[in-house]
């Protein structure tokens, strides 16, 4: 259906316009018929009154019929463009209006007969009454007719249109305007729900507000919320499965590690390195599952300097052991954000581990805390590949990193964490070369003037 508007609002307005138009048409038709009926009664009364007046002037004197219609009556009939004819028993004209040479219709009826003469050449329609005059010894008939578009009717209709009918238009427009406003008010909760649904992000809360919704919308929103809940549950189960699996992997990894440590074979050292990579992957799977559980503590106040320093201190022995260096550059004043200490720690750890994987021997990993507030991690590696730099591609999960193992996973952990904190992760490449990752937090306004 192309005619129907695509939105409910449009459809309701269209429907209401239709209803208004029908109501106006029905109202007008009703008024017209009522008016017409009244007019007909009134008209018939007029015909009868005129015939009564004419009858008063018909006398039978000594068996001879005389009909001297009073001049006033004749004038009144002429004024209304009416015509009359008086007929005797045989149908011969006893008296008539000027110009009338024959009777209008059959006359031998004892009951009054209303008649109608259709339009003829140069003549309009006529409506009339043929009746026998009572109280006269010989049968006498009077036929009287007026043009159908009677002047009274015309003038009354004209007055009606002039004084009253135009009110219909503003009245109709007012009704429409009120309708539109009412519909808009009624649909307001729906647009609010639409806004909420639009704001739903992966990793964020996914519930539509049920409070204040009308019952019919509430049913829909409840159903959607229940569906969200089931999806979340399925998601949670999957995350739990991943977490459990990662947990289970730890013990066999520990066995392999202990076993390898006892071997003197140089191959064992190579395997140890590979095992380290696996360990890191398992760690990231766990991190990812934790971030995916949506229960990040973002409600506390954290000093970014402290958390970044802690994470760097945690990783420093490994970094130094691999012949790389790390530094932390921080302002003297606290950089406070609302967030979860463990979550920010985990995010920084992942960025630094990632940087470690790509920093060349004797290279420096630099972690800078700025008052933006943000944590910037720079490495001296080859930089991020193009498809990782594209945030949309990253969020959609389409990126399969070309960098070494676990980079995509690590970045998605950071990305998720930042989204949960209302911030974001920006990746760029320095000409140095080197990769630069910026964890940007929303400014909570707690920052002392730097």
């Amino acid at each position: 259906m192309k005619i129907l508007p695509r939105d409910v609002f449009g459809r309701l307005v269209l429907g209401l316009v239709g209803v208004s138009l029908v109501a106006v048409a029905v109202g007008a038709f009703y008024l017209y018929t009522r008016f017409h009926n009244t007019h007909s009664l009134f008209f018939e009364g007029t015909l009868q009154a005129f015939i009564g007046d004419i009858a008063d002037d018909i006398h039978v004197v000594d068996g001879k019929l005389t009909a001297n219609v009073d001049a006033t009556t004749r004038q009144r009939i002429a004024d209304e463009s009416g015509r009359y004819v008086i007929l005797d028993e045989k149908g011969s004209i006893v008296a008539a209006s000027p110009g009338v040479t024959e009777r209008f219709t059959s006359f031998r009826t004892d009951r009054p007969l209303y008649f109608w003469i259709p339009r003829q050449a140069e003549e309009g329609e006529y409506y009339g009454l043929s009746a026998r005059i009572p109280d006269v010894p010989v049968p006498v008939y009077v036929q009287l007719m007026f043009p159908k578009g009677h002047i009274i009717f015309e003038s009354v209709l004209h007055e009606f249109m002039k004084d009253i009918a135009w009110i219909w238009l503003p009245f109709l427009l007012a009704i429409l305007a009120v309708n539109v406003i009412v519909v808009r008010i009624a649909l307001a909760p729906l647009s609010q729900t639409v806004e909420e649904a639009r704001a739903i992000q992966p990793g964020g809360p996914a519930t539509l507000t049920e409070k204040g919704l009308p019952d019919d919308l509430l049913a829909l929103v409840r159903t959607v919320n229940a569906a969200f809940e089931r999806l979340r549950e399925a998601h949670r189960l999957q995350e739990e499965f991943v977490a459990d699996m990662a947990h289970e992997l730890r013990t066999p990894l520990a066995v392999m590690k202990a076993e390898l440590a006892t071997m003197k074979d140089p191959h064992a050292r190579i395997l140890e390195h590979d095992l380290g990579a696996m360990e890191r992957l398992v760690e990231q799977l766990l991190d990812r599952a934790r971030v995916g559980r949506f229960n990040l503590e973002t409600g506390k106040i954290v000093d970014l300097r402290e958390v970044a320093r802690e994470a760097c201190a945690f990783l420093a022995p490994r970094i130094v052991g691999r012949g790389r260096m790390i530094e932390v550059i921080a302002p003297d004043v606290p950089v406070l954000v609302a967030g979860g200490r463990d979550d920010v720690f985990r995010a920084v750890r992942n960025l630094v581990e990632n940087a470690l994987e790509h920093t060349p021997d004797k290279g420096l990993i630099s972690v800078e805390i700025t008052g933006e507030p943000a944590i910037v991690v720079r490495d001296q590696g080859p930089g991020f590949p193009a498809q990782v730099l594209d945030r949309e591609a990253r969020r959609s999960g389409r990126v399969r990193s070309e960098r070494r193992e676990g980079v995509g996973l690590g970045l998605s952990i950071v990305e998720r964490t930042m989204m949960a904190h209302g911030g974001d992760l920006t990746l760029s490449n320095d000409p140095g070369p080197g990769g630069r990752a910026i964890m940007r937090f929303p400014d909570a306004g707690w920052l002392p003037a730097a």
Partner: protein
Amino acid sequence: MRVLILEDNSRLRALTAGALRAAGFATDAFETLADARAAAETTAYDCIVLDLGLPDGDGMDLLEALRRRGSSTLVLLLTARDDKASVVQGLNRGADDYLRKPFDVDELIARIRALLRRPGTAFQTVLAEGNIALDPSERRAVVDGTAIDFSRREVGALEMLMRSSGRVVQKSALEEALYGYDEEVSVNAIEVLVHRLRKKLSGAGANREIVTLRGIGYLLAEPRA
């Protein structure tokens, strides 16, 4: 020194126990909580390495039973659980340290040694890292067999670094440990102190060096060629 290890994975248990024995610890290894509990009640262990998830219960129960009895045996937790909550819970219930699986056996041995050296424990002996040896009670340091003349604060700094071997010592921690609250500390006092200490160590031919991590702290590590 006697160590008890409770780990349900048989290969990990055998390997870890083997490594501990090779490192000179008299080691008893158990698979179940019940066996370990029976052994701990009859034998005085210096250190217990405790796995948390066991087939017949939670290692935490043994820890609690030990502490209820008033035992001050050092306890190191091994955990495959990654949530901080369970680690914090373990430490609160009286564990002395923890390691997450998968761990380095060498790190486990180093941690046990560090635990045993803690001040207040009966095993506070000479600290050793590479060819550096330090007797904290006598404030005497020996590098590569030669006694070195360190100032009081230099020895203090070296002791902190050696005690937390393999971990970063934050600059603020050094400051707090070496200077009293009422002492004026110049902005670069620690830098100067560490610089002097580093020069003396390398001058004496130490095979460990103090790495300065800007904005983080200091780390005693093996120098890399």
